[in-house]
């Protein structure tokens, strides 16, 4: 087995792992019971799966230029995946789009109650506390 073969094999293994993470996200989407747990499954391939695929491309093409061109892909994804997951999770919680009996602990409930009471006390209109930008808390 030559060195080239070993690199090809490593690239193939990375490819397989990335594909497996993608498949796991698909299965999780179908099998998990509510939006928040589906979100958990969905965010796995966005970073780790992409990391594997980028590694596979770099190993397969064996060029530094390709790796440098792929770094922005990873950078963008690492920067934006948490934002979108946070937004979806936040909207999911605030619209009651989850099953409370599945939660073990709900640390956000007290904070939201508190913010809600404070807003009531301050006489803010209810519309300001909707699904939009966060209240002061």
């Amino acid at each position: 087995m030559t060195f080239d073969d070993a690199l090809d094999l490593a690239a193939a293994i990375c490819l397989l792992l990335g594909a497996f993470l993608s498949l796991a996200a698909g299965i999780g989407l179908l099998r998990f019971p509510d939006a928040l747990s589906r979100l958990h499954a969905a965010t796995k391939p966005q970073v780790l799966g992409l990391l594997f695929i980028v590694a596979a491309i770099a190993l397969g093409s064996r060029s530094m230029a390709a790796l440098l061109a792929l770094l922005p892909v990873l950078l963008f994804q690492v920067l934006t995946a948490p934002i979108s997951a946070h937004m979806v999770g936040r909207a999911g919680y605030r619209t009651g789009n989850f099953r409370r009996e599945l939660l073990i602990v709900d640390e956000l409930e007290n904070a939201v109650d508190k913010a809600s009471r404070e807003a009531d006390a301050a006489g803010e209109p209810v519309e300001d506390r909707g699904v939009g930008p966060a209240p002061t808390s």
Partner: protein
Amino acid sequence: MDIALGIVYFAAGLMFTAAALLAVSRIVRGPSILDRVIASDVLLTTLLLAIGAEMVINGHTRTIPLMVVLAATAVFGTIAVARYVSKQDKPATDEPATDKPIPDEPALDIEEGSGK
């Protein structure tokens, strides 16, 4: 060696196909808009990974710019939808497997019609 690589590539393609089909089925079935937006995010991620896998399999690097653009813009759709989800989008009932009613009131009391 070549046969082993061929099998690996075939398996990877099969997994991507299955993942995309599962995501599409979740987009169709819902039940809420958030489930659909999560599933479409997964579909886009699968596409991104499949483009990368195709580069590995065919041994070229020509579609890297496509990956960069997809990775940079994938976030906008999700944020735009998540920002405007309203309480009316809560599913009335979940999957048939779950008989328990969904708790009616979330922690935050939003009046009907708000959040639009």
